[in-house]
């Protein structure tokens, strides 16, 4: 069973083994801080997972229609009506910082 079909670009090309540089890149993409020691440990864990995926990829899936969802149902649609009330006050009550109705976040500069 192919969970992802088509041209999805695999993050890891076979043979499936991640080096430390790739671990750091994945961590950066996921915005997770990983120290050098953690990186080595993480590589071991991820590589054992990749072994499992490798086994699955060995299954012959030719002739099987690609699947894009676990349930064999189709998307239901919603009528185009603006029905949501303004709940800003309630939502912002749990925000760490707000001003003039805006959520404040650490400054992002391109």
């Amino acid at each position, binding site marked *: 069973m192919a969970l992802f079909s*088509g041209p999805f670009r695999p993050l890891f090309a076979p043979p499936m083994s991640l080096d430390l540089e790739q671990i750091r890149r994945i961590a950066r993409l996921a915005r997770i801080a990983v120290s050098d020691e953690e990186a080595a440990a993480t590589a071991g864990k991820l590589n054992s997972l990749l072994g499992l995926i490798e086994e699955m990829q060995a299954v012959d899936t030719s002739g099987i229609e690609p699947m*894009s969802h676990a349930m064999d149902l189709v998307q239901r649609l919603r009528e185009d009506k603006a029905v949501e009330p303004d709940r800003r006050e309630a*939502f912002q009550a749990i925000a760490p910082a707000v001003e003039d*109705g*805006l959520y404040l976040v650490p400054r992002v500069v391109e």
Partner: protein
Amino acid sequence: MTWEIVVGLETHTQLLTESKIFSGASTAFGAAPNTQASAVDIALPGVLPVLNAKAVEFAIRLGLAIGATIAPRSVFARKNYFYPDLPKGYQISQYELPVVQNGSLKIATEGGEKTIRILRAHLEEDAGKSLHEDFKGMSGIDLNRAGTPLLEIVTEPDMRGAKEAVAYARALHTLVRWIGICDGNMQEGSFRCDANVSVRRPGEPLGTRCEIKNLNSFRFMEQAIEYEARRQVELIEDGGKVVQETRLYDPDRNETRSMRSKEDAQDYRYFPDPDLLPLVIAAAEVERVRATLPELPQAKKERFVGQFGLTPYDAELLTGARESADYFESLVRESGAEAKLCANWQNGELAAALNRDGLEIARSPVPAPSLGALVKRIADGTISGKIAKEVFEAMWRGEGSPDAIIEARGLKQISDSGAIEKLVDEVLAANAKQVEDYRAGKEKAFNSLVGQVMKATKGKANPGQVNEILKKKLAG
């Protein structure tokens, strides 16, 4: 040796729905920050997106209008990246199975009509807005725009140069407004283009491209593409290499500059969104939508040329917007006059006046039936075209119907040949030199004499008749 500029465009069109693509929050522009951001839009835990039927219908409309395949089954995917105005940490988009596939759009170029292939159009949600003004050293986030439905329309690299890119963007801009799926407001960001630009020697494979963002007017698009192509050519001619990257256009300096460093090379790790089931569109639904489509700009343009005998140029101008084409058809009907005369008036006097006062044709102080009544009076010989311009200005100022203005100002054309003959005799008597010149073969003298007669009648004489009578008298 010459260089060829190759352009592909990606256009984000904001769909004219009342609510968001996956929530029931309003999409109205200009509300106070975060008052139109629901639990789904701000990505509170445990919420589920539910797809807006209207957004799907609008995607089908666009697909049909560009002769594309409407995918019977399409899939939503998560595009993963981190930015504070994207609270989920991913944007719901479509990746390998978009809803619209393989269409095309015809554009007018200097070398004639050209077909631009449209690879795909997919539904996705917009992000919020980040405000970087100083909030105690922090950024402010407004999520009102988060979840607004977008249709991203992607071409093949079929355009050669900035002018063709702009012609395509204009044609698409006309089309999306024409079929009522987008208001086309570029200032408010409802129609945003990114251009993929590369250069090559003619006949060679495609060069490395750069993507230019922030093209929020047609003028900026042309300038940005021209600048970027020149930059790439100079780089290559100096022995350098173009690096694939995203660049931002700065209209103040008229230049593009690198936006993201190579280190942060995009890796969106798309995968199907488990929160959304596949979108299935039945053939019957496609046919239902097809039945609601108006006559499209291209078909109308061809009909204006075929049925009315207009030039492609006139037809192109008249079909620049649906309101304009509707105005024209009404004008022809109301005036009962030749279409060419109607086109000249709409594309000439009317367009100039609208332009001068910064008005849309739908808000013209002179609506089609009124202009029709005026053109009718030109066609039936009541007034000359020149006098009609004076009447038109009066109509524009709200002085009444053309007939009332003609009557009140005594502008009726003098078609009484006896009266004209008398005037001609007077003019000939007073201009013996010109008469001599004309008889000596100076054609210009004739025009001067016509001018004198017209002047004597304050432009009210029928110019055709004046010509005829003058010629007769001069010959005799």
